[in-house]
C-alpha cells in the first residue's frame, strides 16, 4: 500500500493522462451530440498520425521527404483531420439514417483499416518512439520527475474542454451543432448547413485525435499501433460518465480514470497494480449504474417520430 507521499507524486502524471482521456472523451461527446456517431476509431486515427509524424521526423521520410519535428507533428495532425473529415463527409452520411449502433460500428471499419495499414507499414516488433520538445523541461516532485509533456497535456485538456464548452454555448456554430444534434432534418429545414456542421465536428474530432495521439505516445513512450488504438476505451468510459452529453462530467470522468489508473500502478500489491486496466470499465459501469438510479425524461424529436 503506497503512502500519501507516493499517492501525491503520481497525481500529476495521473492528471496528465486523465486530461488526455478527458479531452478525447470531449471530442467523442461533441461528435456524438452533433452526428449521433460514437467514434471507435479515435485512437487508431491518432496512432496513424503519430506514425506519419515519426516517419517524417525520425524515420526514413515519406515519399522521399523528411521534415523537422514541428512540421511533422502538424502534418500528422492534418492527416488525422483529413481521415476524420473524409469519413464524416463521404461515409458517415451513408449510415446517417440508421440506428446509433450501426452508425458507431461504421467507425470500427475505419479503426480496422487504420490498424491494418499501420501494422503492415510499421512493424509492431520494432522499437520506436517520439519525444515532444517540451519533455526536456523537468521538475522533481518527491521521487518523481514531472516533465513538460505532462503539464502541456494537462493544460491542453483543461483549455480544450473550457474552450469547447464556451464555443458550443456562445457561438452561432455551437447553436447550430446543438440544433443538428437535436434533430438533423428539422435543422436542415431551418436552413442550418447540416453537412458543414457535421464536417466541422468531424474535423474537430480528427484534430483532437492527432494532438492526443502525439501526447499519449510521448507520455507512455509507446508507438505500438494496437496500444495506441485501445486508448479509445478510457475515452469512451469518460464519455459514458457524461452520458455522451455532458462535457464537464466527461472531463471529470476522464481525469478520474487517469488518476486512478496511475495511482493503481503505484501500488506494490499486484492485486491492485495488475488490474489497473480495469479502471475505465469500473468507472464506466459505475457511471451507468449511477445514472440508472432514477428515471429522467429526456426529449428528443428524433425518437418521437
Amino acid at each position, binding site marked *: 500500500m503506497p503512502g500519501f507521499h507516493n499517492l501525491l507524486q*503520481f497525481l500529476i*502524471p495521473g492528471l496528465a493522462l486523465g486530461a488526455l482521456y478527458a479531452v478525447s472523451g470531449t471530442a467523442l461527446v461533441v461528435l456524438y451530440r452533433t452526428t449521433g456517431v*460514437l467514434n*471507435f476509431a479515435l485512437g487508431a486515427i491518432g496512432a496513424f498520425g503519430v506514425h506519419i509524424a515519426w516517419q517524417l521526423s525520425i524515420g526514413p521520410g515519406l515519399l522521399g521527404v523528411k521534415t523537422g519535428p514541428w512540421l511533422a507533428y502538424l502534418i500528422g495532425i492534418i492527416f488525422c483531420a483529413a481521415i476524420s473529415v473524409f469519413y464524416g463527409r463521404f461515409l458517415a452520411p451513408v449510415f446517417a439514417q440508421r440506428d*446509433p*449502433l450501426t452508425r*458507431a*460500428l461504421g467507425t470500427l471499419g475505419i479503426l480496422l483499416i487504420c490498424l491494418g495499414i499501420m501494422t503492415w507499414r510499421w*512493424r*509492431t*516488433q*520494432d*522499437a*520506436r*518512439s517520439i*519525444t515532444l520538445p517540451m519533455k526536456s523541461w*523537468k521538475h522533481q516532485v518527491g*521521487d*518523481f*520527475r514531472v*516533465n513538460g509533456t505532462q503539464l502541456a497535456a494537462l493544460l491542453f485538456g483543461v483549455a480544450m474542454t473550457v474552450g469547447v464548452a464556451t464555443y458550443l454555448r456562445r457561438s452561432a456554430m455551437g447553436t447550430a451543432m446543438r440544433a443538428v444534434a437535436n434533430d438533423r432534418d428539422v435543422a436542415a429545414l431551418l436552413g442550418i448547413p447540416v453537412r458543414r456542421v457535421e464536417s466541422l465536428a468531424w474535423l474537430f474530432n480528427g484534430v483532437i485525435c492527432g494532438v492526443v495521439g502525439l501526447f499519449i505516445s510521448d507520455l*507512455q*513512450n*509507446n*508507438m*505500438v499501433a*494496437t*496500444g495506441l488504438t*485501445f486508448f*479509445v*476505451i478510457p475515452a*469512451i468510459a469518460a464519455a*459514458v460518465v457524461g*452520458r*455522451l452529453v455532458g462535457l464537464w462530467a466527461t472531463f471529470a470522468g476522464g481525469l478520474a480514470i487517469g488518476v486512478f*489508473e*496511475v495511482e493503481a*500502478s*503505484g501500488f*506494490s500489491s*499486484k492485486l491492485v*497494480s*495488475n*488490474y*489497473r*486496466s480495469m479502471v*475505465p*470499465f469500473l468507472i*464506466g459501469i459505475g457511471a*451507468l449504474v449511477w*445514472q*440508472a438510479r432514477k*428515471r*429522467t*425524461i*429526456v*426529449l*428528443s424529436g428524433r*425518437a*418521437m417520430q
Partner: protein
Amino acid sequence: MFAATMKGETFTMNRRTTAVLAATGLFALAACGSSAKTTAPATTAAGATTAAAAVTTAAAPATTAAAAATTAAAAATTAAPAVTTAAPAAAGSYKTDPSWGGVAEATAGDKCGLGNGKKAEGTPVKIGSVSFFVAFKDGPNAMTAYIKCVNENGGIHGRPLQYISLDGEVDPAKTTAAASKLIDTEKVVAITGGFSLLDCPVNGKTYADKGYNIIVAGVPAECFGSPNIAATNMGPAYSAQGAAEAVIRAGAKGKLVHITGDGPGSEYNGTYVAAIAKANGLEFEDMRSSQPDGATFADPVTVTLNAVKKAGKGGGVIITAVPPATLQILKAAEDQGLVGDVIWGSATPANDVSVAKAAPKSFDGKLLINAELAPLDSNGPDMKLIRDVLAKYDTEKTPLGSFSQMGFLIGRIIVDTLNKMPAADVDDKVKVNAAIKAITNFKTDILCKPWYYGDGKAHVPNNWDLTVVPKDGVMVVKEKCFAITPTDPVLTQVRADEAAKNLNKG
C-alpha cells in the same frame, strides 16, 4: 397524454441507446484488447532449485563450480566498457571468431542448400511449423526466405522444399488446430521453425506421440525440458539469467529486480534470475506488469520507478520484453533520471537494430543485453549468407535480428539434414525424424558453440551467450561468449550430457 407517452418512449430509447453504445464500446473493445492474454493455459515453470554456484562479481571472471566443468575460458571482467574477456571461448575442432568468441565456420558451407544454381522441381518435400506471427514473424520470414534460396539452388536432392508456416496466435485452440493441419492434412515429414508461446506446451505431447522431433525457437519452459523438442535459442529464462550474470559481474549489489509482461507463461521468464541472485546472496523480486495490448507496458513510468526503487542504489534491473516495451522502460528511466541508479540488463529480444537506434544516449554502454546469437555485424559464412538471403528472397522487409537469425538457422539445420539423407528417404517421416535426432555438433557462426539434438531428456543446445551493449546507434560486444551457469536440473543435466557424449564441441 399522447405527448407524455411519447416522452416516455423517447426516454426509453435514449437510455437504451446510451447503454447499448457504452456496453458495446467497452466490452467489444475490451474483448479485442485482452483476447491475446486470457485463453492460454498456464505453462509449467521449470523450478529453479539448485543453488548451483555463485557468479563471482566485479573484476573476477565467472568461475562457478558447475560452469567450470564446461567453461575453460569465457567469462568477462566488467570494469572497462570494451570487450574484456581474457581468452576466447573454448574451442573443439572448429575455428572461433576472436571478436566475440563464437564459432567461425559453418557445417552447411556458404551457399543455400546444394548451391548448384538449379531450380528444384517435382513433388515438394513438406515441412511446417506453428508460430505466433504478431510477435515473432521475423523467424518464419527468414526461414521462408532461406528455403526460397534453397529451392533456387537444387532444393532437397533436386526437389523443392515446401515450408508451411501457420499462425496459432496465443490461442490454444488455434495452436492445436494448426498442428493437426500440419500432421493430418499436410502430412509434413518434419515440424521445424515454430516461434510460439503455446506450441510446445499445447502440442508437445502430440508431436511426441506422432514421432516428431521438432526444432523451434522457444519461449516457455516446455521448449527446453522435453526429449523431442530442441531450440536454436535458449529462451527468455536462461537469457534473462545471462543478463543477470552480466549485471552481477558489473557490480550489482543488494537486489535484482526482473521486469517482464504478464502474458501466458511469463512467470517462467524470471525463474533463473531468481536462482542466480540467490546463488550470489542477492535478493530478488519479479515484477510482471500489465501489457494490455500484449506488447507494451500500460504504465512504463510507474513500472520503472518501482523497479529502480525496489532494486535500490547499486542494485540491478533486468528487462525481459519485446523491443517496444524495452524501449518504454529505457525512456522512462532516462526521463526520471534513473539510468545511473542501478545496473541495467536485458534478455535477448533487446539485441535488435531498432533498440540500438532508438535507445536513449544515456544508455550507451550501460544496458547489458544478453545475446544468444552472433553479433549482427559479424561476418562468418552464415551471417553473410543471411544478409544476402534476406536482401534477395525476403518479401516482407524482415530486418536482421535475433528472431531472423534463429529462423534462418533452423532452415540451415533442416535443409542440411535432409540433403545428407538418401534421396529416397526424405519422404519417410520416421527416417527424417531419426535423422533430426542424430544431428550432432552442427557448426554455425550464428552460435557460440556447435548445435546438436541428441537423445537427451531435455534440450538446451544453445547454452553459451555473449553480452552486447548499445553504443552510437549499433550493438557492440561487451563480453565474449560465456557459459550460462547451471542453476536448475535441466541445464545441469544438459551439461552432463554434453560432457559425456562429446556434444557442443565441434
